[in-house]
């Protein structure tokens, strides 16, 4: 329990850690999903390409959208982008920074899915076995075109009677797998080089603006959290007061409570302070509306 609490606290310590944690979990989930998924190529001429490319590209889109949805900061960013200006200016650099950090984190799981798919090879073999040139492979050279198409489409299915012990099937499979793995490693290499260059070269451009954008995006996140906490506290006290008023109005019938009044009155005083003078539904509604339409300026002097 203690261990989990510590790990939990470490990740909760700031919002960036939370997002990194979610990003890592999604990446692990995508690898697990791929290993659990039972890939079964249809081995029919028209369907192979659709199935193979579908499995390669549709789950990444789903994972990308999941990454955007699970990230709290995307809502905060949208809020900041769409709010009316009011007393507080909008800083486009902050919005751009938040957007780029959200998109970067959301891209990790889809990229991992694609790379694992390519390194495994089944998708590409399924999708492109029908497009192979039969002349290159001995077993398919002296066969009619229609039959060749059928045979090539059956290459991904090892247990089919037509191609079970066909050495050319193995040659085609091996050839496609080699290309698939080469493509996977190349994509991984390109991405890592890009990440390295981005990390190395970023301080060379506009470091001061970056520090500011990062600080204010963190600030917006903290402010939103504290506002929600304050509102929760307020609504709790509001409800408490409301219920107390209700019981007070029933006072004549509940004579037993009368000697409790002074003590409750004192507690009332302290809590009323925390209500900060906002004591009815219309006032609360007005407060929430103003928070959205007219955020206060960043000046507490």
């Amino acid at each position, binding site marked *: 329990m*203690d*261990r989990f609490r*510590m790990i939990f606290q*470490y990740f909760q310590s*700031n919002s960036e850690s939370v997002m990194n944690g979610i990003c890592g979990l999604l990446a692990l989930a995508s690898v697990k999903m791929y290993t659990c998924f039972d890939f079964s190529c249809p081995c029919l001429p028209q369907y192979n390409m659709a199935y193979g490319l579908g499995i390669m590209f549709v789950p990444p889109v789903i994972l990308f959208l999941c990454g955007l949805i699970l990230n709290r900061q995307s809502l905060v960013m949208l809020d900041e982008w769409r709010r009316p200006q009011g007393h507080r200016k909008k800083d486009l650099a902050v919005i751009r920074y938040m957007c780029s950090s959200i998109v970067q984190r959301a891209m990790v799981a889809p990229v991992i899915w694609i790379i694992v798919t390519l*390194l*495994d*090879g089944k998708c590409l073999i399924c999708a492109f076995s029908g497009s192979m040139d039969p002349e290159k492979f001995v077993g398919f050279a002296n066969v009619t075109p229609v039959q060749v198409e059928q045979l090539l489409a059956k290459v991904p299915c090892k247990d089919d009677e037509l191609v079970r012990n066909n*050495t050319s099937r*193995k*040659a085609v499979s*091996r*050839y496609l*797998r*080699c290309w698939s*793995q*080469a493509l996977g*490693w190349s994509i*991984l*290499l390109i991405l*890592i*080089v890009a*990440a*390295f260059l981005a*990390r*190395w*070269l*970023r*301080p*060379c451009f506009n*470091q*001061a603006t970056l*520090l*500011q954008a990062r*600080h*204010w995006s*963190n*600030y917006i996140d*903290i*402010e939103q959290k*504290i*506002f929600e906490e*304050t509102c929760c506290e307020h609504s709790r006290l509001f409800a408490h007061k409301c219920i107390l008023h209700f019981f007070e109005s029933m006072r004549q019938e509940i004579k037993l409570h009368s000697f409790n009044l002074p003590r409750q009155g004192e507690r009332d005083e302290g809590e*009323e*302070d*925390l209500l*900060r*003078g*906002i*004591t009815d539904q219309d*006032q609360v509604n*007005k*407060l929430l509306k103003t*928070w959205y339409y007219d955020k*206060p*300026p*960043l*000046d*507490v*002097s």
Partner: protein
Amino acid sequence: MDKFRMIFQFFQSNQESFMNGICGIMALASTQMYSAFDFNCPCLPRYNMAYGLGILLVPPFILFLLGFVLNNNISMLAEEWRRPQGQRGKDPSVLRYMFCSMAQRAMIAPAVWVSVTLLDGKCITCAFCTSVPVETLGNASHPLLSQGEIQRVLARIPCKEIYNGQELIASEVAIRYLRCISQALGWCFVLLMTTLAFLVRSLRPCFSQAAFLKSRYWSHYIDIERKLFDETCAEHARSFAKVCIQQFFEGMSTDLVAARCHLPRKASEDAGEASKKLLGITDQGTMNIALKSWHRCKPPLHLHPPALPSGNGWAGEGQPPVHLSTPRRETAAYYSLV
């Protein structure tokens, strides 16, 4: 639980320990990746060499760059390199130290991959099966086989189920031969790496140990300073938000008189505490200027002396002491960095 917490705290204690932890994890990850990876030799004449050497050399390069990318110090190094001089001098030996220590840690996972690959043998077998010496190991004088045909047959050696050149050279013999060479190379590589590491560690104190200690100290300092700055900014943002929201609620309340009368004790305590933490920076413009100067013009490494005590108990005499003691500098003047 306690042990786990201690280990966790130990790794978090400074950036170097943290990086050692990451380095170890990456080395383990590289062995795991190799065993999970399904090696699939194409068994075609020109593709074999490309595939085999590719698998031997491309993942180590990826792991090396990944070691840099995962290291937070890289942006710190780039920042320190590119910042304007301002009031604080730049010391190239500190930058060199940081770069060397990052590069050393990043080299471990690639070295592990290369050793594991060579010791396993599949890559070398795949890459060099067409260069097996058929004259010594097999039956070179096989009639009616052109050079190209021989190459095609030899290329299928790693793929046992499609190999059809038993008369030319037994696949077992060739695979054993190539594997033996690969393992010898692997062990030599491991020996070489270990010897290098040993020499570097044992000979370094013989050369400029004092300069080394200085560089190490200042590189730790830069790391700690950056972390503390980020923490201070986060705390400032939190206090700023609290006070801002407090003022917002107060401004919204229609019952202004009631709010002022009560003057909430708890709320004002909170606000007082939060205002103190604001360190005098109370609006967006000032904060932006503070962040900009942090980058453009870092403060000098020279802490101000504490203020002189004024009038220490000489009220009765009416005469100040003859000589005021010079302010004791509690901080060592490490401005040799400049």
